[in-house]
């Protein structure tokens, strides 16, 4: 078993905490894992990404090789497109929130961006922001997207829930449940497809 994931978004949108949760779950399952991430200057409103690799065998490279990524998991649609050179053209999935995060003057038209995402053979593009908002957890978009991706992650959703508990436990029961609910709501979206 191996699974290579790119998590992406804009600094502060929670891409890196999603990576931390998947990693925690993977470690719990006794899998090998490597997770490379962006720190420093790029985090100031720039694009952020994390290469997350899981396997039952030892992993060599910290970076995912071009064309071998199984899932691009994004909280922002244009950011999902930025990492297409890594995606496995035939079997790779793009799972992304559909709402643009516009902090640059030359952001392309939303429709064009979504059309590009849909050109990929396997994609789930949905309004994760709205689901999070409806749950009263507007910061939970990243967990909703993770929930949708969980169907393809080869990691039991219970393991992810446990990882959320481990990661957010010190912030209190309320925060844990809000994130678990967001995760479950995202999973429902994927299950309906």
């Amino acid at each position, binding site marked *: 078993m191996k699974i290579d994931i790119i998590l992406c978004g804009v600094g502060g949108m929670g891409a890196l905490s999603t990576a931390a949760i998947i*990693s925690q779950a993977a470690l719990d399952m006794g899998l090998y894992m490597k997770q490379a991430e962006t720190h*420093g200057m*790029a985090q*100031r409103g720039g694009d952020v990404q994390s290469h997350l690799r899981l396997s039952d065998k030892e992993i060599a490279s910290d970076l995912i090789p*071009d064309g071998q990524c199984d899932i691009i998991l994004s909280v922002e649609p*244009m950011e999902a497109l930025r990492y*297409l050179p890594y995606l496995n053209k035939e079997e790779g999935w793009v799972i992304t929130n559909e709402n643009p995060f516009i902090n*640059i003057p030359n952001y392309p038209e939303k429709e064009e961006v979504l059309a590009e995402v849909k050109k990929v053979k396997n994609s789930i593009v949905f309004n994760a922001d709205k689901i999070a908002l409806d749950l009263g957890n507007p910061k939970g978009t990243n967990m909703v997207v993770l929930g949708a991706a969980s169907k393809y992650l080869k990691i039991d959703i219970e393991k992810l829930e446990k990882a959320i508990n481990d990661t957010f436990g010190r912030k209190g029961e309320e925060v844990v449940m809000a994130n678990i609910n967001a995760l479950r709501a995202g999973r429902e979206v994927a299950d309906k497809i």
Partner: protein
Amino acid sequence: MEKLLLLGDEAIAQAAIDAGLSGIFGYPGTPSTEIIEYIQASKEAKGKNIRSSWASNEKTAMEAALGMSYTGKRAMFTCKHVGMNVAADPFMNSAITGVNGGLVYISADDPSMHSSQDEQDSRYYALWAKIPILEPSNQQEAYDMIHEAFELSEKFRLPVMLRITTRLAHSRAGVVIRKDKREQNQIAIPENPKQFILLPVNARRQYKELLAKQDGLELESKNSSFNKYIDGENKSLGVIACGLAYNYLMENFTQTKCPYPILKIAQYPIPTEMVNKMYQECDSILVLEEGQPLFEEKLKGFLNNGKKIMGRLDGTLTVDGELNPAKVGKALGLEVSEGFEVPSIVAPRPPKLCEGCPHADTYKALNEVMADFSKGRVFADIGCYTLGALPPYNAINTTVDMGASITMAKGASEAGFQPAVAVIGDSTFTHSGMTGLLDCVVDNTPVTIIILDNSITAMTGSQKSNATGRIESICEGIGVAKEHIRVITPLKKFHQENVNVLKEEIAYQGVSVVIPRRECLVWLNKKRKEEKQKQKQQE
């Protein structure tokens, strides 16, 4: 067996704690910062009384580490690659003095310049100083190597460099932690009272000793478990893979075995015997290095009249930038997989100043003032405020190295280019700006120095700034006239007031300092969150 999920940086820090470290010294710099942060946050380190607060700059940090080593204790120094330039003086001379307690220097290089202004390779420094280098290829090796580095340092009585790069520093993996933790050394000053007195007469003797240690160091490299010769059937090519490059090589052989002999190098000086074996057996050699082509250049020689040596110098790999699996695969002539191209509509999303950042208000005021003069007069420095170079601000004209704002403005002013303005952050000011300010005061050069005080080292992720609460008294102590040290609050509502202050000080024909003071919002939010959490825990 305890397995922790650790960044490469964190693995290094945990290893140092386990290896009997007494103190760590450094200045924040991506990608090295998390090493010291880990120790600062570690309860275990606190329990062991390991000192870990930030130094003012890399030079002071390295000297303090050397001082701790002098007492017989184990010490560590960390920096990003360009920090080695700041610490170069103690670095080179500490190879001559040698050490007493184990001393390990960590340099975190940043090929591809993810957060840096150049991609210099710190291995050159260590080779130049003739000290050993360890270059881990993964997090576990990083952990194990720290133990080895301290042993090696105490055995040869030399500082040892551990060189990492961004992808190891900022990549997480499971790391097996040793159960047997080493106790800290007791205080015991050097047996030879002249060891640390580098008078020429002593230095000449010490240097000879350093030279005499080289054969022993090479033997260590040859016998090191981190260096490996892995035989292959196809001798048309031999592959030398240094540090992280070994991973990218192996990534190309997950399904099959590499047909070529491989020499994995993770400990230097380069073991000649192992290289020679490969050279004799193989028709040509491919050198894979994450960084600059240091090894390749040596192997090729000035005349390049031996066997074919491939790598970054002959175009087999790019000369600049970090490696990756595809680059290495192509260099081996393998067919590599490809994904889709990035659609042309994707726009770059460069980093920028945060919403509500105090620097933004300062730049707005400064731009208004500078509009009265011809362009190119604002000399800036290294920090978040460097982003003022980008639209919509376009407020600064130079960024070179830590502290260069003040001294470059001075040089420009002395060329007759007045007014000249320097923009420098609080932490950068105490890092390398104070001596430049003294030069300005001594020459009474007309410059206006804007010290942006957000009370934190922001760019690297909110580390404590040694300048906090001290800027005015430092400036006054250095000799800036009290009435020309002006503090302003960079907020929209004070815009006009701030413009006026800047105008007055820029008009002044001498050294003036303006201090826009408002806390970094990222840090403020972080602080508030932590306080809230503490409160919750107390409830």
